[in-house]
Every structure is written in C-alpha cells, then in structure tokens.
C-alpha cells in the first residue's frame, strides 16, 4: 500500500491535503454503508473500490498509460464513451461530490456557483484527486453556463475539449449532435493515434450496451416490493460505474443482479414490509455525495430509483448496433444520447414523463426532487415537476441542498415529515 504514496507523489498531488481527505472518508463510509443490516454480499466489490478509491483504479490507469493508452476525463453522461473506447482510449468520470474540494473551487469561481462545479474545479486545482491528475485530456460539454465558464478556467491547467450539446431536441439538433460526435471522434483519433473504425466502434457500442444492460438489471430488481438492495448501495454502484472499466463494471453489476434476483425469490428484503418507497430526481450525486440517500434511508423510507444522471439516465436506452458505416453509427449514438432528458433542454417534457413513468414502474410512494444550490436549471424545473406529479396524485417534496453537513438537521425534519405524511 505504501506504493500509493509514491504514485500520488509522482502525480504531483498535494499529499498533506490529500491525507485530510483520507481521514474523513472512512467515517462517512462507515456511517452510510457499514451501519446497514443484511447488505448483498456482492457489494464487496464496491466496498473494496471505495476503500481503495484513490489506489486501485488510479494504479490501473497509470499502468495502461505506460502502454501508451490515453485517459479521457469526462463530467457528463452526454460524452459518448463508445468513441473513446473504439480508439482504445480509457474513460474516467471526473465529478466532484465532496465539500472538501469546494473552498478550492471558490478561490477562482463565484461563491454562487453550484457545488458540483466548485468541487470539480477545486479537485483539479487543489491537486487532491488522482483521477483529475491522471486524465490526459478533459472532455467538457455545454450543459450549463457554470460548466461552460468553469471549463475555461480548467483549460488553463489541463488540455480541454468541449462538445457543444444542443439545447433543443428538433430533428436538426439530433443531426447536429451527430456531427459533434463525428468531430469528437477525429479529436480522439488525434489524441490516441488510433483510428475509429466501423468494426471497433461497433464493438465499443456493444461493450457499453452490455454495461447498460447489467446496470438496468440491478435497477430492475429495485422495482420489486421485496426490496433486495438499499438506495445507498445502488447509488454507490452507479457512482463507481463512471470510473470503472466498462467490461468489469458489467460483470460486477451482473453478479450483483444475480444475487438480488435470488434475494427476491427468497423473499429477502433490506427494509421491513410497508417501508415507504422514494423516487429521487434532480441534480446528479457525484461520489462521495451520499447525504440525501442516507438521510432518507435513516428516516424510515427507502430510495428505490434515481431519475438523474447518476441513475436511470446513465443506462436507459441502448445504442442501435446495426449500423454499417461510421455515419450510421454516429447517428445511432446521437439518437440514443439525445434521449437524455437533461434540464438544459427547452422545453424538457421528457423528464417529467420519465419521472411519472419511473414512479409507477418502481412503485414509488413519493418523489423527492432535489437540486444542488445555485443550479438554476433544475431549480426552475421543480415547479413543473411538482405540478405534473400532483396531477398524477403522487406526493412530492422539493428540496435544495449543497455538500455541507450544516443543513442535515433541517433536511431531516423535512424528509421525516414527508415520510410521516406518506405513512398517513
């Protein structure tokens, strides 16, 4: 293990600050995960990954870089992993979910920027996250104004490539996104020195589709009245899937799904019968952001589904594998990715349809719609989400929070009151 210190040193990390981060993680992991009874055995894999979060996977990435492979850091579910994989590149998520990084971000960004952006910038500039050090290039996208401007700041410190996500979903926008993907492929070829061939791209599409199917299997199990996995565990699985090798991710998710399906057959649930089921929607929950799930699940309810980028949006909808030209395949990618109902689109009725559909599929008793502070897009959408849910007779609680612990008491009061209301 001592090797990691050397690795971090070689990555140019700030070891002293990083050590402070290492001090707080075990407490949070212990409180959030180890207090749970009867967790699935297959969560072992994710327990190991989170225990060695700045060790095992970074070391793997560095080994691959030594063989000449390039690592692409991404911030958003719009960036098509398939293109990078087709060129023998590696994708790693780069999202800041920790308050630890926020002050570093606030040093260069306005305070009223969302904590996700502040933490992501802070993680890079503070040199306390190996993933942010390892990535050869960052791939950004135009899903909000804050990110667009933050990428300009990051771009002064690290090579940055930006994809222009359309803001509407007309047929011409799908074509435009296809062209963005084709341009991106050229850039990826340039960085990796490898061609994106039809064959390689088809194989990459197949690999990522398999990962999506495996994650979906885990989520399918959460639809059962006999709930075989907590929301916290499912969230951890999803969060880590952004960082892992896609084939291993699929394998581990399938292994977990096998166990969950067996649990359902055996009637093994992680909560007492009648526990209220919550669908969570809103801004993404980047690792290690577990605050909301933990508060909900220690307030007498269970999270059964996340309609968010760190949730269903990451794996729903497969890419059509049948195309025989690069143009066909890029179009197939565009069509799949443009089904993503991010709040950056106007109008965005698809998200509300998804929330209602998922609430029904997952038999949710109520919906919690939570946005990160200063995320105007999701905050504004709360009104139409709440109105649509009320029309459907589905209770909804709208919340706003950040990465600080200080509002936990008030969140508990609101969430407990919501659960009391659902319990009638």
């Amino acid at each position, binding site marked *: 293990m001592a090797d990691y210190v050397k690795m971090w040193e070689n990555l140019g990390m700030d070891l002293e600050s990083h050590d402070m981060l290492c001090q707080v993680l075990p*407490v949070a992991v212990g409180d959030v995960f180890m207090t749970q009874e009867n967790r699935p055995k297959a969560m*072992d894999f994710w327990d190991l990954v989170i225990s060695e979060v700045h060790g095992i996977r970074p070391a793997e990435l560095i080994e691959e870089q030594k063989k000449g492979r390039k690592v692409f850091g991404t911030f958003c579910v719009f960036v098509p992993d398939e293109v990078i994989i087709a060129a023998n590149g590696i994708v790693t998520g780069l999202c800041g979910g920790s308050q630890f990084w926020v002050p570093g971000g606030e040093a260069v960004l306005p305070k009223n920027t969302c904590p996700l952006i502040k933490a992501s910038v802070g993680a890079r500039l503070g040199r306390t996250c190996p993933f942010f050090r390892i990535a050869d290039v960052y791939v950004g996208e135009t899903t909000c104004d804050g990110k667009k401007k933050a990428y300009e700041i990051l771009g002064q410190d690290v090579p940055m490539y930006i994809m222009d996500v359309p803001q509407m979903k007309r047929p011409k926008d799908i074509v435009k996104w296809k062209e963005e993907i084709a341009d991106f492929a050229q850039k990826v070829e340039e960085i990796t020195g490898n061609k994106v061939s039809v064959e390689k791209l088809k194989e990459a599409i197949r690999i990522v589709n398999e990962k999506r199917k495996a994650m979906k299997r885990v989520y399918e199990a959460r639809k059962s009245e006999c709930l075989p996995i907590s929301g916290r565990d499912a969230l951890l699985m999803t969060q880590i899937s952004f960082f892992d090798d896609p084939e291993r991710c699929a394998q581990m998710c399938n292994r977990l799904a096998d166990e969950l399906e067996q649990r359902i057959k055996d009637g093994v649930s992680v909560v007492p019968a009648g526990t209220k089921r919550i669908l969570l929607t809103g801004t993404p929950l980047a690792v290690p952001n577990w605050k909301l799930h933990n508060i909900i699940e220690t307030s007498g309810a269970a999270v059964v589904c996340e309609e968010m980028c760190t949730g269903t949006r990451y794996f729903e909808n497969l890419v059509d594998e049948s195309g025989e030209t690069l143009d066909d395949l890029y179009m197939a990618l565009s069509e799949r990715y443009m089904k993503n109902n991010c709040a950056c689109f106007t109008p965005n009725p698809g998200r509300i349809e998804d929330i209602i559909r998922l609430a029904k599929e997952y038999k949710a008793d109520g919906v919690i719609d939570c946005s990160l502070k200063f995320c105007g897009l999701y905050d504004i959408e709360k009104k139409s989400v709440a109105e649509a849910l009320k029309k459907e007779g589905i209770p909804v609680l709208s919340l706003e929070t950040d990465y600080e612990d200080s509002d936990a008491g008030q969140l508990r009061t609101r969430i407990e009151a919501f659960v009391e209301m659902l319990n009638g």
Partner: protein
Amino acid sequence: MNTRYYILFENYEQGLMLHDLLDGAGVMNRIAPAPAAARGTLCCGMSLLVAPDMIERAKEVIQSEHAVYHSIVSMENPLQPRRDQYC
C-alpha cells in the same frame, strides 16, 4: 458501547485473501475503509470490519490458516447512521 473490530493489512491482496477465508468459514465480515485513527502510518486503504461476536472466530481462522494481516484494532461507536458527517 458499540465496539467494532478492524483488521488492518499492508495491502489489499492480503485483505482480500483473509476476507475470502472468513467468508468461507461463515465468519461475518465486511470490507471497509480503515479508520484514519487506527491506520497510523499505513496509507488510505481497506480493512475488514468484524462485530464483537465474530472476532474470536475470526482470530481462530487467522491462526489456523496462517493468514497475513497487519493488526487488529477495536473502536467504540465507530458507526453512527445519523451522525451526518459526510465528506
């Protein structure tokens, strides 16, 4: 008092080996990040979390299988679901 035991290792390969041995012997344990207070000079990494009613059996398995580990530390009330200290 709610005591928990953490078995610490030099590296995760050792940890995983004992984890499999304990699981094989039906000794309940979970992979968890080693608490900072217990880690000392060891760096950020995994440990095995064992409840008091299982620790003696865990020690028996370690002995009979000659399993390699660094140390075993006990902690009082390390796990508090409503502490609300996130990271």
